[in-house]
């Protein structure tokens, strides 16, 4: 009897969780918190409750549906991409003017791009879809993100022709002015210039990328040691601009004295001095 009682008690604890109730915005907030904590089941319950508690087509509904779709799309394990696609499409059908629409469109393309292991994406379709987002939502952050993904696919071909085309588009994007994603756009340009063998432009792009790096005001833990090293070595070996190389090697030594590259920086400073001394002596001997 006693055992049966415990068993019944145990089984009742294993039953489905009680449905969540509350205001949709609060439930959406809770859903995202649970999602970030990888509590995907709880996130799903919260988003479902928010969806059920808001009017279909409203902004809250769209946000809740987007959260739910994202959970089904990206949770591991237990993902259901097909269900996620259905939910994303539901947003586009029922709330085409919602602020979530650009992000929903981007999520659908990302599904096409990030295929499971062993499969190759249909790059032609993926590129066209990224382009569609850029045309449909010009200036929106989702469109800018789509632009970066599209250009990274083009540049990954490592071909001079596509790199040149990409260079033009990236320069157009940069001239757009807004600071969002400008630093990675300059970084992508450096890739184009490596493929094109234009080292001076590569160095300039690296410097611009560093200058425009966005720093999270609440997170000052950003290190530029690796980037200083990169700029210094390009300046030294690709461009022959020893003054700039010295500046960045020295910056690394001064700002990050315990960085792993410090030994290399000191060697580099000596190496450049030695080379200049040798060449100077040779010129004087002439």
């Amino acid at each position, binding site marked *: 009897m006693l055992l049966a009682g415990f068993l019944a008690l145990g089984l009742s604890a294993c039953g489905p969780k009680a449905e969540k109730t509350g205001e949709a915005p609060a439930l959406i907030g809770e859903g995202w918190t649970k999602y970030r904590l990888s509590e995907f089941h709880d996130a799903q319950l919260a988003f479902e409750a928010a969806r059920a508690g808001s009017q279909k087509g409203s902004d809250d509904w769209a946000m809740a549906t987007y959260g739910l779709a994202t959970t089904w799309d990206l949770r591991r394990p237990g993902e259901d991409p097909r269900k996620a696609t259905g939910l994303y499409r539901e947003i586009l059908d029922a709330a085409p003017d919602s602020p979530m629409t650009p992000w929903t469109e981007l999520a659908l393309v990302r599904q096409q791009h990030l295929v499971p292991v062993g499969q190759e994406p249909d790059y032609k379709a993926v590129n066209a879809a990224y382009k569609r987002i850029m045309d449909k939502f010009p200036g929106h952050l989702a469109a800018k993100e789509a632009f970066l993904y599209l250009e990274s696919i083009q540049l990954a071909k490592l071909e001079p022709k596509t790199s040149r085309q990409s260079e033009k588009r990236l320069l157009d994007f940069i001239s757009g002015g807004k600071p969002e994603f400008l630093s990675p756009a300059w970084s992508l340009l450096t890739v184009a210039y490596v493929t094109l063998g234009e080292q001076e432009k590569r160095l300039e792009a690296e410097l611009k990328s560093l200058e425009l790096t966005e720093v999270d005001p609440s997170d000052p*833990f950003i290190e530029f040691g690796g980037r200083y090293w990169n700029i210094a070595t390009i300046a030294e070996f690709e461009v022959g601009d020893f003054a700039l190389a010295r500046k960045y090697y020295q910056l690394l030594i001064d700002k990050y004295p*315990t960085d792993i590259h410090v*030994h290399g920086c*000191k060697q580099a400073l000596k190496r450049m001095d030695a080379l200049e001394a040798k060449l100077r002596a040779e010129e004087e001997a002439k």
Partner: protein
Amino acid sequence: MPDFLKSSLSFLRTYFALLVVFAVFVWSAWVIATFRAQQTPPGTVVIRLGHWQLEASVREGIDEMAREYRKTHPNVVVVQDAIPEGTYGQWVSTQLMGGTAPDIMQAGGMLPANIWLSYFNRYFLPLSRYANAPNPYNAGTELADVPFRKTHKDGMKTAYVTEMQEYMTVPLSLFGVRIFYNKDLLKKLTGRDEAPRDYREFLAVCEQIRSATNAASGQPYIPIAGSAYHFGHWDGMMFSPLTYGAIRRADFNRDGFVGNDETFVAFKTGLLDFHYPPFKLWLQMLREVTDYFQVGYTGLGRDEAVFLFAQQRAVFMTTGTWDARSLQEQAKDQFEVGIMDFPIPSRDDPVYGEVVEGRIYESPGGGFQFGVSRTSKNPDVAIDFLLFLASQKGNEKINRIIGWIPAIVGTELDPFLKAFEPHLEGIYGNVNFTLGGNTAVAWGQQYSLYQVNQISFEDFAKTYTPFYLKEGLKDFLEQQRDWRRGMQRNEQYLAGIRGRAILADQAAAAAQTPEEKSAAELDAESAWIRYRAITASRQVWDELNHARQMDLVNRDKLPEGFVGPYEYSPRVLEKVRQRIRAGQKAEAAP
């Protein structure tokens, strides 16, 4: 016999085992409850602290600091849960999942990194707020106004969880590896008071030790107590740094390191082979030094080597700061323990001089890290106690008691540990000869045979090189098959950050007062910058990095006019020459 007695006996017979278990459970519960009650008088705030450091000095150190803390916080009692390393992972998991975790827990070890990440996410409080504010316990010192994270020698790098963009722990100590030696035995066998600093001198001393016979055992003395565990120390700290020079041949992307793909391409194109001096001499030094280990060391574990050292049958043994105090205790009244740095060859060494560029670089990464659990009933007190332990004075004191290196700047190191002062500038190994499962297995086999002197260097190079060149690409491609999995993980993570940023936008739009609006807008801006920064640094590059890597590993020959990564091309040389010429002309001009 009355019926009730009969039935009682029958019940007892049937359920005897269960009753014994129940009785033991009741007894242990009672003992624990009364023990806890003694430790924690009514009305006190109890802070439980869980860790895996069973060294006596650690418990002693924490107890002493708790007593010190009580002087200013009389109602706070700190109770330690010292759990053995072997079970710490399971213990942490059950405590966290069961909602019974201690307030403060040692974190970052005994479980895989991804498990810790998920635990940090679910069960620990972020500490970024405290990391960016001064530590109140540093008042009156030069660190009084310095943000807490900057008071750490490593800038609290190891406490920062990139995936969460939060500081999650407080590191309290730094660690390092050095050679411990028996001072008395060294003196007796070699007549030396000081440990050898130079490599050649060290080998000569080892030879001298080996030629002496231990009167007690009738066996020769063992110069170095080694094991599979200790071999890693020697290789990492002394042998493999000789391979640093490989960057000059194979660091094609000039990031300062030689990746496994770069080594492979350098071998394929003939830029490198095992006869390249840094590689050849690395393997030569390995053989020279391990010849002074006891026979069969590769099959032995850490404890066997420690026994040899403690029983005074061996003179040298490597270990880390974590063992320093224990070894000192074990040797007490028997022999004096000394600590020395790894002896490296001098620059004029006839054999190694050409590849020795300095000492190994040691990253000052903080360990002995503690986080605060979300289930803590007194999180403010728990965090305050951690700040106390990580204050300049507190950190110096706890580390002095334990015998470890303090993590906070401006602290004094125990003189015994001076040799552990990390080398903050130096070189590092560039050994990376495996590309996937098959090459890793073949490497493991050949390298082990070489280690125990069953094959010569020539045979090692002759056997492994063709296998590496034949199977390497296949192995690499197999390993690269799931390269998009990383992108999917990032996508999952980014979606969460994006969701938070969109909510922050909504909160800013809904704010009622100008102050609320301003704070909410700042929060939203911060969330979006964070989102863009992570998107830019992670998600945009995978496609490109994969393409570049594939382009590299498929190369069978070097491009025309190839110059080494750290050599000047004729074009650059000409440019520098022109500049010098122009400068000389300008100087010569009246």
